């Protein structure tokens, strides 16, 4: 049973508990049919709830503490992962992990924002909020990948870049800007995957690439619904409305051509079945990478830049 249950998951979890109790009973009683019909009922209920999720509910799934994080995906999807540390200038940002690994037998550079699962690990990972040295570490690893012609895969999952005093002193804005600039012209394929929260420039700082994939129950926008509420409504109470207004889900973003492909999640979300989530993502990553490898690098970079130049809606 999951430790954290979201409000709208409750009826499903309750039925699931009932089934597991009945299964124990079924060792002595003949209630197979009842169990079967209850299982069907769960499926129906789940389909009904998950096809009508509000944007705020999707934000909550994206933040679910049992959702797979970057290192979970790396561990489930790749082999031979060797973590590489440090930006070579200042330090090692624990909110950003990366290193070489093999995907389907071929070497890739995997880089991603890493959250913690409890208080202790969250403090260690700074809740997935990067400092400038994290962006510079990511860039160092991307340059390393470029040198040895290995594709880059980045995983986005952050509530934002860290708004700290030292972060400003060390040039948070410059570090993010530099990455946007350098990633635009990196001479290897880049696949970006939004696996949880994609909050603003902090997420985008490792988010420029040839293919932008987004898991089904994630959010990606210019600001979190809470902060948007506090600024525009001058109150923290309008996060649901802010989430609706920001149109921050995968289904929204694919319509604006901000993402290229939605990665389906297992029934009930990635946190209900992390292994299955990883299997689905792995297949899609292999498929996308194979497509990108066929394109000459100069053309690929031109297409990458053009893709971002096409983003925006205006009147003239």
């Amino acid at each position, binding site marked *: 049973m999951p430790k954290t249950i979201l409000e709208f998951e409750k009826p499903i979890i309750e039925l699931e508990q009932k089934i597991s109790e009945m299964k124990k009973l079924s060792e002595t009683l003949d209630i197979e049919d009842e169990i079967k019909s209850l299982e069907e009922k769960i499926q129906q209920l789940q389909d009904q709830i998950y096809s009508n999720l509000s944007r705020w509910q999707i934000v909550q799934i994206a933040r679910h503490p049992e959702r797979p994080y970057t290192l979970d995906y790396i561990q489930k999807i790749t082999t031979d992962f060797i973590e590489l540390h440090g930006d070579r200038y200042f330090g090692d940002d624990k909110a950003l992990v990366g290193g070489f690994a093999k995907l389907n037998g071929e070497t890739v550079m995997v880089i991603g924002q890493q959250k913690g699962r409890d208080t202790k690990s969250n403090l260690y990972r700074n809740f997935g909020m990067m400092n400038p040295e994290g962006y510079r570490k990511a860039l160092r690893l991307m340059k390393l990948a470029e040198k040895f012609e290995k594709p880059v895969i980045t995983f986005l999952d952050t509530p934002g*870049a*860290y*708004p*700290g*005093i030292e*972060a*400003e*002193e*060390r*040039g*948070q*804005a*410059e570090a*993010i*800007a*530099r990455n*946007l*600039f350098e990633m*635009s*012209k990196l001479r290897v394929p880049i696949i970006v995957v939004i696996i949880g929260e994609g909050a*603003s*420039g902090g997420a*985008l*700082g490792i*988010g*420029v690439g040839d293919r932008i994939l987004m898991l089904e129950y994630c959010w*990606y*926008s*210019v*600001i979190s619904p809470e*902060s*948007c509420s506090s*600024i*525009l*409504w001058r109150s923290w109470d*309008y996060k649901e*409305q*802010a989430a609706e*207004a*920001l*149109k*921050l889900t995968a289904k*929204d*973003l694919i319509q*604006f051509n*901000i993402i290229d492909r939605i990665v389906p999640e297992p029934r009930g979300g990635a946190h209900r079945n992390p292994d299955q989530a990883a299997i689905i993502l792995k297949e899609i990553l292999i498929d996308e990478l194979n497509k990108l490898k066929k394109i000459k690098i100069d053309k690929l970079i031109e297409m*990458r*830049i053009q893709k*971002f*130049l096409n*983003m*925006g*809606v*205006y*009147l*003239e």
Partner: protein
Amino acid sequence: MAWFRRSKSGIESDSKKKEIPDGMWTKCDKCGEIIHKKQLEQNAFTCQKCNFHFRIGSSEYIQILFDEKSFKEMDKKMMSADPLNFVDTKPYKERVKEAIKNTGLYDAVRTGTGKINGHNVVAAIMDFSFIGGSMGSVVGEKIARAIQKSIKTKYPLIIISKSGGARMMEGALSLMQLAKTSAMLTKLAEAKVPYISILTDPTTGGTTASYAMLGDVNIAEPGALIGFAGPRVIKQATGKDLPPGFQTSEFLLEKGFIDFICHRKELKSKVTQLLDLFAS
């Protein structure tokens, strides 16, 4: 990355000079000096006593920087399309309409070509008075086109930033303008055309985290607020008091993120000198 920052009571001028207080006299925000309008203009909208730099708009910068009548505006009437149909306490469409009415501008940046002491340049100049100088699709597109113009003409690019960051009401589309403008700057760099970034009060959020920090030369006006996260957000997140002078131009110079600070009265001559050095 909020565009929002309550303005100081100082001048946030625009093409209609709406915010310049009525009458001939203005009070300096910093030292309280009473300054005559003519005097203010003569001093490039700075206080002659304490050097306080008033917030000014694109029209004033054009007047200060460009040779007379040389500035030719591009894409003047490009406007926001409200792609998200965004409504908070007020529809975004109305906010835009009001901003257009109040400022006489169409969005938060004006772009064009012009001459600075005879040097041809392409320029993009932001207006804080238009929804906090926030960057949405229009700002991103106009800046991308200005860069394109720079590449085509080989005229150096100058961007004067004055912005609270990306515009919330266009959601992820605003965020993508950071990537869009930065991607275009890689093409400018490849074409080896110089880019001078001028950071003025305030330059924060997504604007700082994209083109404002990517100049071949980064210049700041004295005393400007420049940073990524806003001071209020940092205070809230860290629970710490911010050190004196934190996130000012002088602080950024000390930390190594800008090349030099330039008084607005000397901006034209310094930019000319740079253009000369690049061209000779």
